[in-house]
Structure formats: structure tokens, C-alpha cells
């Protein structure tokens, strides 16, 4: 966006305090080369038109509608932070996790750092799914911890893995080796783990004519199949004692999770149904259908790696069936069916736009498409014009974040906030944020700040024998301190000046309203405590903003 539009200012907002999203929480710790992309990401906010704001959540910190009011364009790119479910009995048994949770755990994502998967009371884990995430998870469970220790794996995970008793991992897929959803790189890696016994049933490698056709059309499936067939015939026929084992289990779909007899509520195994492939109508894809034959895989840990799911936020159209935001080339549609009903200024990108598949490059193209749409809309004048309708952008956001920050200063954990102690001003934290947000944008506040700025100019004129006139208010911060201490930025110009150019001032103004009559005022000695100008700090033509809550230092 910065490249495509020379005037654009871009603020990146993340709910975590740290940047890089999935590269940090999703890419495996033993894939440092994939993480090199963070170098490129880091260069982005070095551009002075770009800032990063961490620790800001959509919903609790700022709502989507507020963002849309503050910015001309909002692009949602928050990915897929939830999981698809199987919808079979026993899915909630202790010892079952989604692969995403497990990945977040070993990558040190704050939401899952306390997951504490039990790796000690069992020696067998079942991973449902055969995509790259499934292979990542299998590799982390099976790779010698000596090797993992040199990666940036989270220390709590490394500690737990060092004590892990897991020796045997099943990778279960509904379809066959021809349809395995992983890529060659990840497969090669897991097959190459030191001293690992690999088991693939040779009968599973038999191909039907339809399989042959599928392989002919897909280079990646071809290469994955070749690797699997090679692995099936190489190596020993039996594991040596104590050797770690990886079993590829094809043509099985999970039917139910089995509750443990001696540890009720805990997983003891997975019942799987044998499947066969059937050509689905249209698509040319083969799907797995059950055969009615069942078998049980005993295990004490299940990791479900069957796909991610995006979560909607308030005020965002969402296609629950597909788990994505309905969009036309990145433009958010008001509803799924109608391509003409657009949400003005709202765009979507990445997994939230296409669903949770694809690699970095896929998302690169996806982002380019969204940016092209935005640019088209700017050129066509579809967006609220930047010149006719300026929006507060970063300033607005900072103000709002400060509001929240202030509320948290009043009261960080308590549900109720007592203001003024007169028994009439009690609010919940949420109400207080709401109240402050309204106050920040109210006309009353602006009137007051205009008045205080005007006072500041007069004060300055008296002191410096100048003749400035107040032009307009720019922005202000305020601290409650037996009244309110404002730092106001405003513009003023010299009276009767020929060129009439205004310059920027910043003033510190104390507005000591009589709120606490009984307490002595130690802050000011002025008798008139309303709108006393404490000082005009400086005048400057350019001001640098220093974010108070977060963001990069300017």
C-alpha cells in the first residue's frame, strides 16, 4: 500500500504486543529460513508513513466501526485463529487438542503458553490430518530434543518435550498417499529424522486409474507420492527396541474418541473407520467414504490437524459456511450473494479472505490483489475522498488508545469504577471507556479546548508582547490531577500578518475545576481555577507526536 499510493499513511494494528503474526506463532521453530521474511516485514514500518501498534484488539480496544470512522480504508488481515471441528463424540476429552493450540504452545504464543499437553502419561500420539501442520507437529514430537534445543522453540515446550514419553506417532488421513495434503519439503524432513522408524502399508500405495490421472495433473502430488513410496520400501521391517516410530495411516477417518476406563474423562484411543475413495460429482476430486469397518488406535494424546477457521468480529459480514469474509477481489461484500453491495472502505486479505490455505507467496499475490482493488476504488472516487473528508487516522487511534489507557489507570482489574466519590458516578470499566470515547468526540470537549487554546494565546501574547490569534485546535492530551492538566496543540497566526500563515503551538493548561471542595489545592495558587494557563511550552512549525501507549518512537 505504501508503494502503491505515495500519500497513504498506514497503521498496522495487532492484538499481540509483537509483530509478525503467523511467522512467529505458526512457522515451526526448526524452520528459521522461513522466518527470514521478518527482515522484509521489519523494513515496512521503517517507512515514516507507517506505524505498528501492538496490544490493540479489535473488539475490546477499538471496534471495527470506530476504525472505519477513523480511517479511509480498513484492511482486515487477521487470519484464522480458530479450528474446524470434527463433530464426533468425545472431542472434548482431556488429552485432545487442536494442532493449532499445540503449535501456539511450542511457539510461545501467549494464548497457549499454559496448554501443558500431557506428554508423560502415554507413549502414543494420534495426529488427525496429513497436511503440513500435521507433519510439523509430528516432527516436533519425534525430533531429538538436542536438535530442537538449537531452535527458537519456547523454553516451556522444550522442557516438556525433553521429558516426553511419546515414542509412537500415528498420522491419520481419510484418503490415500496420492491425496496427501502435505508438501514435499515437509515430508522429506519428517522422513529424514534421525533414527526414526517409518511405517507405511505397501498395500495403501496401490493406485487406481483415477489416482494415476490425479498424479498426472499435479506435480506436487506426484513428488509427495514418490517420497512416500520410497519410504515404504526402505528401512527395516520392524522398529528396534526403544526406537521412535512414525506410522502413516491412510484410508481411515475418525469416528469417535474413546474415553479411558481408568482415567475417566481422559482420551484412551480413537476409533477410526476404514474408507474407500469415490469420485465426487463434478470437481474431479475423490472423496473418502466409510466402509463400515472399524478399528481402534490406542493413544493418550490426540492432535487434530484438520484445518483452521476464521472468527468474525462485530460488524463484519461473514460467510459461516466457508469461514471467510465474503469479498470481491478483496472488497468486503455486505452479504454473500450480492456482488454489488459493498462495504465502503472495508477490505480483506489473506486467510480471512480466501480460507486458511497457502504459503507466504500465495498471500503475497492475495495482498497485491486487495491493494489493486483499493487503488481502483481511490481512482474511481468510490472511497470517501481524502481531501474533502479528512479522517483522524493515527491521531484518532492514539486518542482512543489513550482513553483506554486512562481507564486502566483508574482501575485495572475492578469491575466498577467510582468517579468523584459522590455516589452518583459509578460505571463499569466498559461503560467508562464508552463514556470517554463519546466525550473525546463531543462538541462540548472541542468548545472547551478552543476556549483553553484561546486563553493560552492571550497568555502568550501578554508574556511575549506578540499579537497572535487563535486559529484552530489540533489535538490534546489530558491528565486528571485535581482537575485536568491539558497539553494542547493548536494553530495560531499573527494578527494583521500579510501572508497569514499559521504556526503550531503547544500549551500546558491547567483546568482546575472545583471538584474536591474540601481538599486544599496544592497545584496552583491561582484564585480563579477555571482555565488557568500554566505555561505555553513552545512554538514550532512542526511537531513530532510521541505515542503514549505504544507504537514506534518517532
Amino acid at each position, binding site marked *: 500500500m505504501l508503494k502503491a499510493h505515495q500519500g497513504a499513511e498506514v497503521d498496522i494494528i495487532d492484538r499481540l504486543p509483537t509483530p509478525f503474526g503467523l511467522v512467529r506463532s505458526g512457522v515451526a521453530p526448526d*524452520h528459521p*529460513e522461513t522466518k527470514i521474511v521478518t527482515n522484509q516485514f521489519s523494513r515496512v514500518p521503517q517507512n515514516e508513513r507507517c506505524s505498528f501498534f501492538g496490544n490493540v484488539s479489535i473488539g475490546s480496544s477499538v471496534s471495527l466501526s470506530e476504525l472505519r470512522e477513523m480511517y479511509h480504508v480498513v484492511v482486515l488481515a487477521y487470519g484464522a485463529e480458530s479450528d474446524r471441528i470434527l463433530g464426533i463424540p468425545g472431542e472434548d476429552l482431556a488429552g485432545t487438542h487442536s494442532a493449532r493450540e499445540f503449535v501456539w504452545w511450542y511457539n510461545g504464543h501467549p494464548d497457549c503458553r499454559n496448554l501443558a499437553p500431557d506428554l508423560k502419561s502415554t507413549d502414543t500420539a494420534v495426529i488427525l490430518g496429513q497436511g*503440513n501442520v500435521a507433519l510439523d507437529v509430528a516432527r516436533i514430537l519425534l525430533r531429538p530434543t538436542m536438535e530442537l534445543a538449537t531452535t527458537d522453540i519456547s523454553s516451556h515446550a522444550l522442557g516438556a518435550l525433553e521429558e516426553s514419553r511419546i515414542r509412537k506417532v500415528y498420522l491419520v488421513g481419510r484418503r490415500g498417499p496420492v491425496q496427501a495434503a502435505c508438501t514435499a519439503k515437509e515430508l522429506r524432513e519428517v522422513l529424514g529424522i534421525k533414527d526414526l522408524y517409518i511405517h507405511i502399508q505397501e498395500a495403501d500405495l496401490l493406485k487406481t486409474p483415477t489416482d494415476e490421472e490425479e498424479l498426472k495433473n*499435479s506435480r506436487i502430488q506426484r513428488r509427495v507420492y514418490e517420497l512416500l513410496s520410497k519410504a515404504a520400501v526402505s528401512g527395516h521391517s520392524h522398529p528396534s527396541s526403544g526406537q521412535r516410530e512414525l506410522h502413516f495411516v491412510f484410508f481411515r477417518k475418525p469416528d469417535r474418541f474413546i474415553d479411558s476406563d481408568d482415567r475417566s474423562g481422559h482420551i484412551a484411543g480413537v476409533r477410526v473407520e476404514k474408507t474407500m475413495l469415490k469420485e465426487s460429482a463434478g470437481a474431479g476430486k475423490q472423496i473418502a467414504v466409510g466402509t463400515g469397518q472399524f478399528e481402534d488406535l490406542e493413544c493418550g494424546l490426540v492432535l487434530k490437524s484438520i484445518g483452521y477457521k476464521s472468527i468474525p468480529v462485530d460488524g463484519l459480514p461473514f460467510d459461516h459456511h466457508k469461514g471467510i469474509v465474503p469479498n470481491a*477481489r478483496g472488497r468486503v461484500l455486505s452479504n454473500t450473494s450480492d456482488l454489488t453491495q459493498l462495504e465502503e472502505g472495508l477490505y480483506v486479505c489473506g486467510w480471512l479472505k480466501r480460507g486458511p*490455505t497457502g504459503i507466504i507467496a500465495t498471500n503475497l499475490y492475495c495482498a497485491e490483489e486487495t491493494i489493486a482493488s483499493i487503488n481502483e476504488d481511490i481512482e474511481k472516487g468510490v472511497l470517501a475522498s481524502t481531501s474533502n473528508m479528512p479522517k483522524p487516522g493515527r491521531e484518532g487511534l492514539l486518542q482512543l488508545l489513550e482513553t483506554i489507557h486512562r481507564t486502566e489507570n483508574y482501575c485495572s482489574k475492578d469491575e466498577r469504577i467510582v468517579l468523584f466519590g459522590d455516589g452518583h458516578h459509578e460505571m463499569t470499566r466498559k461503560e467508562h471507556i464508552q463514556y470517554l470515547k463519546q466525550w473525546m468526540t463531543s462538541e462540548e470537549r472541542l468548545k472547551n479546548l478552543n476556549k483553553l487554546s484561546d486563553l493560552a494565546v492571550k497568555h502568550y501574547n501578554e508574556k511575549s508582547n506578540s499579537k497572535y490569534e487563535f486559529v484552530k485546535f489540533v489535538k490534546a492530551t489530558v491528565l486528571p490531577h485535581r482537575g485536568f492538566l491539558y497539553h494542547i496543540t493548536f494553530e495560531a497566526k499573527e494578527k494583521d500578518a500579510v501572508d497569514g500563515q499559521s504556526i503550531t503551538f503547544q500549551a500546558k493548561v491547567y483546568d482546575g475545576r472545583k471538584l474536591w471542595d474540601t481538599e486544599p489545592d496544592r497545584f496552583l495558587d491561582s484564585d480563579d481555577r477555571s482555565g488557568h494557563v500554566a505555561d505555553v511550552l513552545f512554538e514550532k512549525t512542526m511537531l513530532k507526536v510521541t505515542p503514549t501507549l505504544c507504537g514506534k518512537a518517532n
Partner: protein
Amino acid sequence: MFITKFSRLGAHVIKGLRRGQLTSTPGTAYSSVFNNHSLQPLKHQFFSATAGDKSQEGEDEANKKISVTFVDKDGEEKQIKVPIGMSMLEAAHENDIELEGACEGSLACSTCHVIVMDMEYYNKLEDPTDEENDMLDLAFGLTDTSRLGCQVIAKPELDGIHLALPAATRNFAVDGYKPKPH
């Protein structure tokens, strides 16, 4: 003009072939380049400079550049000079050609995907390694002459090569295209 250009190119090829015997075997040269790449992304590899050059000619060769033409997705051509030993990814970046390189040449992504426009030139390249093929599997708009820009290293035989940047962005996600799961 066409003719002169062509004959010049021919001369280079012949010279290149002769030089080919001077340099170390392609296999070893390649693997050393690859290792360097994973350790020190985006550093120049002038491996040919050290390869058995006692003569004056050796130094000339080391400083020599070949001509490479990038063709962008709109079909526009940009011809640049690339020193022997430099990867096409580095060369593109030094010349402001919009070729991404998310993993900076460490064979962990497919963003520097280029298409060699002439089969003859494609055949002059070493075969891609398994690791490169793994990444090419995922490249958008893969062709028979696709390579990763970070793995194509300038050598005299490649003088005059044309590399196309895939026209991916124009076609992506139009008319029901579904990205392949991975």
C-alpha cells in the same frame, strides 16, 4: 543490428564454453554456492574468480558481467548487467526489479520464481536440487522452464538470458480459481 548482436552473443557462448573447462566441476561449484546461501543470504558469490585462474584472463573473467533481461508481468523488458557469480535474485534487487525474495535466497519460499524464456538457456542451467523443486512445487504459474531466481547464478553461458516474472497477480483468484491446498 540484429546480426551483430547475434554474433556477439555467439562469441560469448564460445568463450563461455572454453571457460567452462577452467572452472571447477559444476557439481561442486553449485553445492558450495548453495551452502553459502543458507548461511549468508544475499552475499555475492564470486566462486569463479578463485577457480584456477593463474592468468590475466582469470581476473578479467571475474570482473565480467553478462547481460540479463527481465520481462515483467506487463511484458516490459529491462536489460541489466550481472557480474559472474551473482544470483538473479540479488541482481534483480540491485537493479530495482520487482522480484520478491522473502527468504533471502535460503530456499524456503518460492517468491523469487522466474521463468526462463528460452529452453536453450534453461538447459544450460544445473538441474534444480530436490530442495529447489520442493519450493517450485508451490510456485504460482509453474512452467517447464521455471526456476528460483536465487538459484540461477550468472555464468558466461547465460549471457543474453531472458527471465520472465510470472504474471500471477493478474490472474490470481479470478473466476473461481481455488488456491491449491498445501
